[in-house]
């Protein structure tokens, strides 16, 4: 039954020289009906860690909100920034706690802690490190582009262009994805967000 509220999506995360780019499209469709054309599926977690998600929207929003609060508390306890690997593991713990009633969302967590890193998490909370990744119904299409064109140590501009390009190709062939692209860039100076078409 929850399937009715299981929209598709495409989200990608790419590391580049000094930062990460995360991007997602903005559509929510329940069945054939487009419910929203402006949904944000990229989330700022801390000043130096972001996330992008695919799956059930409620779950990803709650997950991002709780992570934002938990990292804020953890930062006050430790009096230092919370690195992306910690954020990924905290998120993994949250998801694994619900092993028997999972949060139906796939997540890419990315950020900078000296180096740029990203992690992918499945609905049960496995954590796998990566240089670039994609999740959602359009992931196959997006990875078709990423696998061919990703190079380590790209410039920020090239990375953003590649992220947008890969999502565009997913939008072209995936009914569940569309309506513009949100981009979140994280580097040592913090996060920046903008919308591409």
């Amino acid at each position: 039954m929850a399937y009715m509220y299981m929209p598709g999506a495409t989200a990608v995360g790419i590391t580049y020289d000094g930062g990460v780019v995360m991007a997602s499209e903005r559509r929510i469709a329940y069945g054939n009906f487009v419910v929203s054309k402006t949904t944000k599926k990229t989330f700022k977690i801390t000043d130096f860690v972001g996330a992008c998600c695919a799956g059930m929207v409620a779950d990803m929003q709650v997950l991002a909100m709780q992570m934002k609060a938990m990292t804020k508390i953890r930062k006050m306890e430790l009096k230092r920034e919370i690195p992306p690997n910690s954020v990924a593991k905290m998120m993994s713990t949250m998801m694994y706690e619900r092993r028997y009633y999972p949060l139906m969302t796939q997540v890419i967590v990315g950020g900078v802690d000296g180096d740029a890193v990203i992690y992918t998490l499945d609905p049960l909370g496995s954590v796998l490190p990566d240089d670039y990744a994609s999740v959602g119904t359009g992931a196959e299409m997006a990875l078709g582009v990423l696998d061919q064109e990703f190079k380590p140590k790209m410039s920020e501009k090239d990375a953003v262009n590649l992220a947008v390009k890969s999502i565009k190709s997913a939008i072209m062939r995936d009914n569940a994805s569309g309506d513009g692209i949100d981009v979140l860039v994280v580097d040592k100076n913090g996060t920046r967000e903008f919308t591409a078409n």
Partner: protein
Amino acid sequence: MSDYIEQHTYHGTTTVGISCTDGVVLCADMRASAGYFIANNNTMKIQKIDNHAGMTIAGGVADAQNVTDMLRYHSNIHRIDKQEYLPIKSIARLASLIFFQNRYYPFIADILVGGYDKQGPSLYNIDMFGSLDKKTYVTTGSGSPVAYGLLESEYRDGLTVEEGKIIALRAVKAAITRNIGTGDGINVAIIDKQGYRLLTKEQKKAIITL
């Protein structure tokens, strides 16, 4: 919901473990798949538990990572408390109890635990229901039938790790070519009296063409 989970969680593997005269070899491929989709091609399925012990994971990545965390935690706590390494036998028994406690909603994982302690090298296989088997050679995962084909004819008693690692690599390589859940490269770890070490790319290349 369960078919959503089935198609979106990471699975698939071939892992090989060989217990040799002077240590243990653990070997695994690097692919994580979700259905037919290759979700990750750089997956570390051999995990270090402590300086003297390692494990391989097959099955659901989330479940297996959770078991890894628990074994690592208990091994560390024991070492700090008692100032000695937790014996491999105990790590394996602990893993088996963890699996059996979840008998009615099992961790979907099939693990190998291997290491080197006061008793010398040892290797165990623990399945998702908690059965515990001491092995001299073993393989788990979707590619295990293929890997067994090679192991059954190549394994013999009295192997050294130097010989064992070649057989383990060849077994996983065979699984990569004949099992679609397996692929994207091979990791090898050796645990002997010097401790736990992963082979580098160059060391692997010297043995086999990947």
